[in-house]
């Protein structure tokens, strides 16, 4: 008995709010909930009062009423106007959730049946654990090795599906040091309920301490460089002169002219695709079928390392400073190579 009383006393009713987002989403949540309660009360009062007052004992003869267009319009339009407020408010939060601040710290997440693999820019790796500093915007770039997962931290009120074949991002700014749940919220197979972990929010100094403890294998970019060499990428992607393949220095986040006339930004998604399926987008002036497919050959984690390496080749242009007005980088082959590109590519 006493035990059950204690359970009831500890009954959690509302989640802790530990991020900047949490406060604003909670505010909207309570606004909608308040409106919902108000509407529920109105309906229940209406049902109750009418059922009591016009019970057949007290009111044996019904008065026939056709209806009232005025009333109908009132209770159609008024709720809709209130819902427009919800819509606008919600859309604003959704927009903010999709636009990470430019100075956000980047962490990489790979979902795999049934674990979350976390990679930090300094090369530290964790499984089912995420450490973030308080007060610092953090952007997660997420990939899946297999099925659809969904990365969720209830205390931060953030969640995003992790679709195989795509990069998905979410961001948050933690506000309260602590130890919070991390869940997968898209059913992903047998041990779906085991795909959970902890998020630790640390004070900046503690975070610095924690961060200095890891990284024995070098930074993410260094790991990427190692892979770049191991896989023989460097034989064609020469760093400073035109080889059979585009130069990668200075590429990251710059517009690239494609063979079919389009221009795309060389962001994470583009580089990922170009590694796994090089023929999907061919840079203008180059031939298809030169580079082997790496799909199934290297893991999403390795792709993240390679991207970090390629990113490190353009140190002066962090993501924040990319401008759309910049002209496309000229990475087309030199005149000599362009003269017989087929020959260069096929042999």
């Amino acid at each position, binding site marked *: 008995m006493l035990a059950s009383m204690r359970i009831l006393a500890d009954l959690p009713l509302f989640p802790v709010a530990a991020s900047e987002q949490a406060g604003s989403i909670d505010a909207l949540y309570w606004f909608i909930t308040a409106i*919902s309660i108000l509407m529920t009360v109105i309906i229940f009062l209406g049902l109750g009062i009418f059922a009591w007052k016009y019970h057949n004992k007290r009111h044996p003869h019904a008065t026939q009423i056709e209806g009232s267009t005025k009333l*109908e319009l009132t209770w159609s339009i008024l709720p809709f106007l209130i819902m427009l407020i919800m819509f606008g408010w919600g859309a604003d939060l959704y927009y903010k959730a999709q636009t990470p601040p430019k100075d956000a710290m980047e962490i990489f997440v790979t979902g795999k049946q049934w674990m979350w693999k976390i990679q930090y820019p300094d090369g530290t790796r964790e499984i089912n654990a995420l450490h973030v500093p308080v007060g610092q915007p953090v952007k997660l770039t997420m990939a899946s090795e297999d099925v659809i997962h969904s990365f969720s931290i209830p205390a931060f009120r953030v969640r995003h599906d992790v679709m195989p074949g795509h990069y998905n991002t979410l961001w948050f700014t933690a506000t309260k040091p602590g130890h919070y749940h991390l869940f997968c919220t898209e059913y992903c197979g047998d041990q779906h309920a085991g795909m959970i972990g902890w998020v630790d929010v640390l004070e900046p100094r503690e975070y610095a301490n924690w961060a200095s403890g890891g990284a024995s294998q070098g930074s993410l970019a260094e790991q990427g460089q190692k892979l770049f060499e191991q896989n023989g990428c460097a034989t064609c992607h020469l760093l400073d002169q035109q080889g059979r393949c585009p130069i990668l220095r200075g590429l990251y986040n710059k517009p690239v002219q494609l063979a079919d006339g389009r221009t795309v930004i060389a962001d994470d998604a583009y580089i990922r695709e170009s590694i796994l399926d090089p023929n999907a987008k061919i840079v203008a002036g180059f031939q298809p079928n030169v580079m082997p497919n790496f799909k199934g050959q290297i893991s999403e984690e390795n792709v993240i390392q390679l991207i970090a390496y390629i990113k490190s080749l353009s140190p002066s242009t962090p993501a924040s400073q990319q401008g759309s007005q910049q002209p496309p980088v000229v990475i087309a082959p030199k005149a000599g190579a362009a003269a017989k590109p087929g020959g260069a590519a096929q042999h």
Partner: protein
Amino acid sequence: MATLAQRSPEVEAEEVNYLNVEHGWKSWLLTTDHKRIAVLYIISITLMFFVGGLMAVLFRINLLVPEGLFSAETYNRLFSMHGIIMVFFFLVPSIPATLANFLIPIMVGAKDLAFPRINLLSWYLYIAGALLAIYAVVRGGVDTGWTFYAPFSTTYSNSYVLAAAFGVFTAGFSSILTGLNFIVTVHKMRAPGMTWSRLPLFVWSNYATGLIQVLGTPVLAITLLLLAFERIAHVGIFDPNIGGDPILFQHLFWFYSHPAVYIMILPGMGVISEIVSCFSRKRIFGYNFVAFSSMAIAVLSFVVWGHHMFITGESMYTGLAFSILSFMVAVPSAIKVFNWTATMYKGSVSFDTPMLYAFGFIGLFTIGGLTGLHLATLGTDIATHGTYFVVAHFHYVMVGGMVMAFMGGMHFWWPKITGRMYPEAWSKFAALIVFIGFNLTFFPQFILGYLGMPRRYHAYPPEFQALNVLSSAGASILGIGYVIPMVYFIWSLKNGPRAGKNPWGAAGLEWQIQSPPTTFNFDETPVVTEEAYNYGPLEEIVG
């Protein structure tokens, strides 16, 4: 209607009716009588309801302790088959294939549906689909969830996905044929004088349902077929490793499955319109608005599917469009709730069992509908998506709404279907139990959901235990609440007092013919001269 015959139960003792006109299994399995097919459907969907319900009981038991009592594998199969059976083999056919099948021809003054043999075919397709689903269960079940999301279902699941998918595929055609039959019947089989503005609202809502069934279900069929090809031959259509797009599967799936929730709720709304007006002894408030809100729901239901995918990475603008459209579909639902409430104003209300279920429906559907706003709002969907909040929301609509309406409708028309009354006290008691059990089961899940507990977890962090135990306790009460009516309904078949033509003193053509009706419903085609819900004082009708 003024010229109703007086009720005289004892004289009607051995009249010929659709139940006793023929005997033997052949007369049932080869029947084309819409009433007999409705009875076949009632039996079959009730069986499926209890199979699906048993699974729910089992996984609620599993969730009593944080680490889960069963293995993850078992739990996943239980919730998946619960979803598949309840959605495709109970909720979708529940009211259309049973009550509407029985009542629509009578309500429009026809001898049968437009295509009686197709009606029978639809029952056989349902049975074939149900057998395939049962086969999947017996062989070991499916663990994909009822949503069959690719690439899990196509590449990673080791369970009997194909059998279940073909079961759903087959049952889908059953649903299409039912909808097609209703559309044609409502258009072409109405008795003289039965104009569109005189149609009972139950017919309107099932007509709207028919439109959704006919337009939505084929898309589900082709989607499942593509899924099956992908699973068998790995052709890449939904496989991200070969350039396929799993989000396309979700688009195609929800293009049907969102409208499908309106297949599940619209007929229930029709039942409530009938019950509220009968037990308020008053014409429905704002007939035109209630009728057209059904059509508005049917149309809008096709353009809101994207709200299931707000956090898949769909574009900002897609999200905005689907969010605002989802709010729009809430308006006609709100119109209905307001109109039912207003119908009671200055009525003469009585609390017979069907009316209790109607109260339950309006209350629970209101809560279910309003919590839908949290999910339609982009910002709060981020925090609630994929959690128990969603589970609670749709159970409030589907179980609190549709199952309440189904029970209400069964209690309302049981005297017409069987010619017998059920025990009043027991039925009121059961209605109360269902209401209490339901709220105890699902209200804690709203709290669990916002706390962050994800759906489809066989084990959970210990701080969620108290609410889960509460929910499981409620489920056992709810289960009892559903078993009691089963018992007294079966008891009433032999022992219930004879009901007579019109035990409720209700308006509507179905109450002017004998209970149970004869095979062709009417001795001669009725001529309708009055609007639906032309309620006078009770004494004039029942006497």
